[in-house]
């Protein structure tokens, strides 16, 4: 090649490469959304369904943001320390700003601090009161009623419907969450003039509940109120069923996951028991009908709580970004505060002073196996209502 052609080629190549970055910038920057959950380890169930929920939300939102959505997963492995470190890494290395999810309260509580420090935005659905209570911060929102709502919306309607109930026995997990449930339950019992005949605490790692069930049965109570979560609840209820406890007293479970835990127990166990749920797939609201249609279309099964929760929080995030017209977390936070919308449980609002979503909590009763219309028809919804800590009594004052 002679010198002239060489210079021409070199010149055009140089000019071209100068133009390239401009060309890249002209293309839309994707919206990066980081879903934190346990995809491996002991709580992998949570991650499995959470993933499906986020994917459904991404599909449903389509192109309304005007650019591609980059859905990234952060595997906490069920360990809050790992969750925090990975969130730090994502914010540090990838400049991550938009987060959702968490398998457990301890993960959410730990990462919400990091996200707030680095000025991100985070929507979660875990149960610990502190998330929108004493540990609340500007960056964090929560969809899902904490213990006050769970206990009140489950106990009060039931007590009204069952005037014959006089005595209550509680089995409580001896950890922060269990204590919170018990505190709220005691207030309700005081106000409704029920006699709290006894309480058994059990530890987080407990597997053998026969003793506590024996205590309950010997107490003469009309109602057994179950105040724990996760594997504790499952083991307790399974063993309660083998002891024939249901025949002697009503069983009320304040905090229950939903379809996955019903399946883990089976209708023979759950028949006749009362459960409090954040979500149930037969909820008759326009938003839920849409969601279930989309979800079933993609995954051919009914959605579990984690899927629904992740779908809801992910959609809230995308929607807020769209309304704010910006990726900036501060703008998204502003767009979320005070927002009213049609949520999965009906009319929902995001309270500005504690970033807690006001939504409905369900009281359901387990059905007999013979009465189930399909394999997932475990329960009938008895009531859908809400109860939230009023602003004056809240530990959180963001406004």
């Amino acid at each position: 090649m002679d010198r002239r052609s060489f210079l021409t080629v070199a010149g055009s190549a140089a000019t071209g490469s100068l133009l390239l970055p401009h060309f890249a910038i002209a293309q839309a920057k994707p919206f990066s959304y980081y879903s934190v959950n346990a995809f491996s380890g002991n709580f992998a169930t949570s991650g499995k369904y959470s993933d499906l929920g986020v994917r459904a939300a991404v599909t449903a939102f389509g192109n309304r943001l005007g650019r591609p959505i980059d859905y990234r997963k952060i595997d906490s492995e069920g360990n809050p320390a790992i969750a925090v470190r990975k969130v730090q890494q994502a914010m540090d290395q990838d400049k991550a700003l938009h987060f959702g999810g968490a398998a457990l309260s301890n993960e959410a509580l730990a990462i919400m601090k990091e996200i707030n420090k680095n000025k991100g935005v985070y929507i979660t659905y875990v149960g610990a009161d502190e998330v929108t209570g004493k540990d609340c911060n500007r960056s964090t929102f929560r969809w899902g009623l904490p213990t006050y709502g769970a206990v009140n919306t489950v106990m009060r309607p039931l007590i009204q419907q069952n005037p014959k109930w006089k005595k209550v026995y509680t089995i409580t997990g001896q950890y922060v969450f269990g204590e919170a449930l018990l505190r709220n339950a005691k207030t309700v019992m005081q106000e409704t003039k029920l006699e709290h005949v006894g309480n058994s605490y059990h530890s987080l790692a407990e597997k053998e509940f026969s003793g506590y069930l024996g205590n309950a049965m010997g107490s003469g109570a009309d109602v057994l109120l179950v105040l724990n979560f996760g594997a504790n609840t499952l083991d307790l209820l399974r063993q309660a069923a083998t002891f024939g406890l249901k025949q002697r007293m009503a069983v009320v479970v304040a905090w229950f996951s939903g379809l996955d835990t019903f399946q883990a127990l089976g209708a023979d166990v759950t028949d006749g028991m009362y459960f409090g749920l954040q979500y149930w797939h037969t909820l008759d609201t326009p938003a839920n009908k849409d969601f279930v249609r989309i979800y079933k279309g993609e995954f051919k099964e009914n959605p579990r709580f984690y899927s629904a929760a992740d779908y809801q929080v992910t959609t809230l995030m995308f929607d807020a970004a769209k309304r704010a017209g910006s990726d900036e977390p501060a703008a998204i936070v502003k767009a979320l505060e005070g927002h009213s919308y049609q949520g999965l449980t009906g009319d929902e609002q995001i309270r500005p002073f504690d970033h807690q979503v006001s939504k409905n909590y369900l009281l359901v009763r387990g059905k007999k196996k013979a009465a189930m219309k399909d394999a997932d028809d475990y329960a009938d919804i008895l009531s859908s209502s809400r109860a939230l800590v009023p602003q004056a009594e809240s530990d959180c004052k963001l406004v």
Partner: protein
Amino acid sequence: MLEKIKHSSGLFCLALAAFALAMPLVMGSTATAGVVLVFAIAAAACNLLLGYAGLLSFAQGSFFGVGSYAVGMVLKAEPGAGVAALHVCIAAGMVVALAIGMLSIRQRGIYFVMITLAMAQLAYFAALSFPQFTGGENGLLDIPRPATGLEGILGEGAGQYALIAVVFVLAIAFLRLVVRSPFGRALDAVRENEVRAQTAGYDVQKLKLLAFCLSGGITALAGALYALQLRSAPLSNIDLMTSETILIMAILGGRRSLLGAAFGALAMTLMAEQLSQLWPRWQMIVGFVLIAVVLFAPRGLGGAWAHWRARRSVHAGDHA
């Protein structure tokens, strides 16, 4: 070169420093690099017990957790305490190790292992039972990082990492000093044949107890650094899984190799980091790797490296 490292502490410290400097580049962020160094310290402290004192302890997580909680409690009460809080954590770790040690040391073999496991469970339940101190299942949150004066130059993340890196070099260099001291040689004697050591006049119980305390203090230090990195002290720091992880890293690296412990920590963290992004069932791959290491590199990464080096020098000698 490894021979040189083994024989010269200056080069050893240089190797440690190089490791610490390389980590952020290898792992991609100071947060994850910090985690590698933290667990390297804990694994090396475990090596002191395992490879030198001959004690397989399942209680390392207890010391790790105690260190985390201690730094959290001190700094939340007294944010100005700064780096001095770390001294409190070392002391706390040594005290807990003394307590656990006094109850466990008299046992031998698998019985010792089991007693430490029981103690570890005791510590876990103690942490759960006193939420006013430990935060219960939510852990201690909002732990303030101490100001190291480097934040202005390096930025907060890197400043924190610098602290961890310095402690890492100091801690492992210290451990190396210990294992090469007469105390270390006494531990070797105890490990090889306890009865003979006893008849030779060594106070075996005291030696083991001292090793236990040193290991506990340094593991607590690691736990404290971890809590500073995370700005929180979760319950998981004191659970059995943490003890298991530290032990695996120590064995993987080679039970007598302090530098190997660092590589054991690196290997496990790297595997978890990379594999968990690819496949939710990634722990299965880790299982295969562990088995492969036991079958093909029974003396761990450190041992395999030394073995390969030795063979190469033999062959080099052949061609001379």
